């Protein structure tokens, strides 16, 4: 059961992050002014991609709640980082992000670290 919950959480997290990243890039920089930050709840309520990303996040969240009750937090949280590989690949293909050698090497180091932490 824990692997089903983990798989569901990873798929939902990847979908949520892709949708949210795409939507927020289109909204523009909201971090520079208070007015920009104050727009976040409005974006959350009105942007369809963000709303869908929250639905995916809810699936991920409930799977996490079930997982964290049965497994140690120090397993459940790092194991969810399996989405790194999926999301980095999709960020390049879908979001057209430039993933250079340094970013790829850093992501690989983080992935190795997460695997060690999750063991």
């Amino acid at each position, binding site marked *: 059961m824990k692997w089903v919950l983990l798989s569901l959480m990873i798929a939902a997290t990847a979908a949520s992050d892709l949708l949210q990243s795409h939507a927020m890039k289109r909204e523009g920089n909201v971090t520079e002014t208070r007015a920009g930050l104050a727009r976040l709840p409005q974006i959350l309520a009105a942007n369809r991609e963000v709303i869908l990303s929250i639905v995916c996040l809810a699936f991920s969240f409930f799977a996490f709640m079930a997982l964290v009750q049965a497994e140690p937090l*120090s397993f459940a949280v790092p194991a969810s980082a399996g989405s790194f590989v999926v999301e980095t690949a999709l960020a390049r293909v879908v979001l057209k992000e430039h993933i250079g050698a340094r970013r790829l090497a850093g992501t690989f180091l983080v992935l190795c670290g997460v695997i060690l932490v999750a063991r």
Partner: protein
Amino acid sequence: MHSPRTYLLLALFVGLRAFGNLSLALGTKRFPEALSIHPAAYLGAMLDPFAAAGIIMLILAIFARMAIFSVADLSFVLPVTAVGYVLAALLGHVILYEPVSGERWAGAFLIFAGAALVGSTPKNTTVTDRVGQSR
């Protein structure tokens, strides 16, 4: 260029997520029913003060990450915010008395090194920042 505000938001997100997850874990571990077997029990679990506090912190973390996504790539944000996994393991060890082996500390070092490497790359490789938009 990386603005201090971006790093402040990254730190805020990492802290909110780590303490939110910890609080959620404390709340759900005190709940007697198995959540995966009885989905209706989720609502009951949310009434636990620790679980509720965890949920509030995780909602605030969503807003922080939305703001970060407006100025940074997904492939930048994911590894950099992975330092939260180290913080989660540390909190699990100190507060929940979960064991942390030598392997886990080695993993923590790799996560920090990887996050630092990714943190030195340009945070946005797709579009130029559009400031404000205070509609």
